[in-house]
């Protein structure tokens, strides 16, 4: 299994320092959700963890070894990333796109083996996109396309999978489906998963571990029940809310108060 951690990480975007001296560990074999308000640095953190962004200071280590000192393809065999807004080339079919996820595993002369076929097949089945395999990616709906991208990330068959807002463009049913899928992956194969998610309620439900970020630093870390509290929501999201146990899953459920709709007196801000 693979342990991913950042030590004393400093990340900059165009000379602007987004985070300074951050140390964080992505727990092995668990589902970690990274949450926070807009522009708090959560996407930046993910990009820093995945080799997309070279650190201005500090290190990112996978299994104790700095990922920037290892060859890119070797890292890509263990650490996979699905970025925001991926773009598919014109005219590419689903099967072809998912197949490109096998690139890190293929030798220098890029030979395609039975193992690659099997991985693609598994990925298509797991995401329910097998019947779309021959279609052009351009023709698919937003939700279908997102599932195909996830299939590509799955075909990469890594020990660690990072997903940056994988549920944008998806309706609620598909959001739940994607998160269930990722959970399956974690439970059956032990894949370490880290997801940046903007929906706090879904994050609280699906997470084994939550990292809440504010202004480039970690505001809180731990199990959802411990981290997702009214004080945290107030501090990290500047939002007045009540937090109650979700009647379906038992995980924390955030009920925002807002200015117009609070009815019963017991729902007034504390």
């Amino acid at each position, binding site marked *: 299994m693979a342990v991913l951690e950042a030590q004393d990480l400093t990340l900059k975007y165009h000379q602007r320092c987004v985070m300074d001296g951050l140390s964080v560990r992505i727990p092995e074999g668990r589902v970690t959700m990274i949450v926070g308000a807009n522009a708090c640095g959560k996407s930046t953190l993910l990009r820093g963890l995945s080799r*997309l962004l070279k650190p201005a200071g500090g290190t990112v280590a996978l299994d104790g070894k700095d990922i920037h000192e290892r060859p890119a393809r*070797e890292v890509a*065999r263990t650490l996979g990333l699905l970025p*925001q807004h*991926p*773009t598919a*080339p014109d005219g590419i079919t689903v099967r072809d796109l998912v197949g490109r996820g096998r*690139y890190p595993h293929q030798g220098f002369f890029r030979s395609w083996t039975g193992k690659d076929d099997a991985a693609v097949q598994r990925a298509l089945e797991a995401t329910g996109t097998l019947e779309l395999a021959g279609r052009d990616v351009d023709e698919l709906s937003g939700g279908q396309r997102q599932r195909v991208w996830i299939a*590509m990330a799955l075909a990469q068959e890594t020990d660690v999978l*990072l997903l940056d807002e994988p549920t944008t463009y998806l309706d609620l049913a598909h959001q739940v489906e994607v998160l269930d899928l990722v959970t399956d992956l974690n439970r059956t194969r032990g894949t370490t998963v880290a997801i940046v998610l903007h929906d706090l309620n879904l994050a609280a439900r699906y997470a084994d571990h939550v990292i809440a970020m504010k202004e480039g630093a970690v505001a809180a870390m731990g199990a959802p029940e411990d981290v997702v509290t009214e004080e945290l929501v107030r501090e990290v999201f500047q939002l007045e809310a009540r937090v109650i146990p979700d009647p379906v899953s038992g995980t924390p459920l955030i009920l925002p108060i807002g200015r117009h709709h609070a009815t019963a007196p017991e729902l007034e801000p504390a």
Partner: protein
Amino acid sequence: MRLDRTAVLAAAVVLLFFVSVLLGSYTVTIPDFFTIVANHLTGGAKIPGASFIVMENKLPRAVVGTMTGIAFGLAGALFQTMLRNPLASPDVIGISFGASAAAVVAIVLFGAAGAVVSGAALTGALAVAGLIYAISSGGKLRRTGRGNAAGNRLVLAGVGIAAALQAVVSFLMTRADIRTAADALVWLNGSLNSASWDRAGVLFLALTVLVPAVTFIAGPLRILELGDDAAAGLGIRVNTTRLILVAIAVSLAAVATAAAGPVSFVAFLSGPIARRFTGKASLPASAFVGALIVLAADYFAANLAPLLLGGTVLPVGVITGVLGAPFLLWLLVTANRKDA
């Protein structure tokens, strides 16, 4: 199915090659052709007239034309795939203008001809390419979230530089005497008139390096198509790969321009035509289509056009432009309509 179509293209290239050598305003029979070539290689007796025309004119012309077409076709396909924009190409983004400007400078200011002009063209193309790359890879890179921001800036920088270089070329054309200006004009349009075995040899050497380089980079290119982030996630070193791609594509365009001048539209058209014909974006198919376009256009320019225009042999680049622009515009119209 796909492989068959690419093989069809390859066969068409061979066919057109022989058509341009054997047919046209001067015809050679097939047995004669083999005799000529065999005798040339073994030092045997030449056929008066035919030997000269075949060995000194038609054959080198067809050989240079084929190789130039392959080089331009590949360069265009590489640019279009890398920039993820079917409408990008070295002609449009100013690299050809860099070659043209340098060549016209050589012709008008230094009275150069032949190999010196080719060398100047090569230098010009590479210089402009370097300039465009430097411009578009620095500066603020705003992430637009979709599409290829760096790629678009490359296109825009190239279009701007092309416009500026065109002004320079126009100016030089007014400073020269009319004969020199007319010569420069022919060069500016891309021509196989000065095809020779020397040029063919140099071009061949260059291609023996560049074509394997293309096959080497083809794999990473397919991953780069998925977007910078996804490609990095799959283990590609994005900036390095892109730099190598640009270097290879520009070198291909530059050596082809040095050999035959900026034959317009070949680089741009080959990729889209190949894709429509074979159903898949394919580098080998683009190369073959490039060769087909050049051979066909040159056949028309050298043999048919003089019949229509009372003896003027047109530069090949003029024919490709006249055919290419409507096709490009049609592509734009359909691409834009598909967007709506």
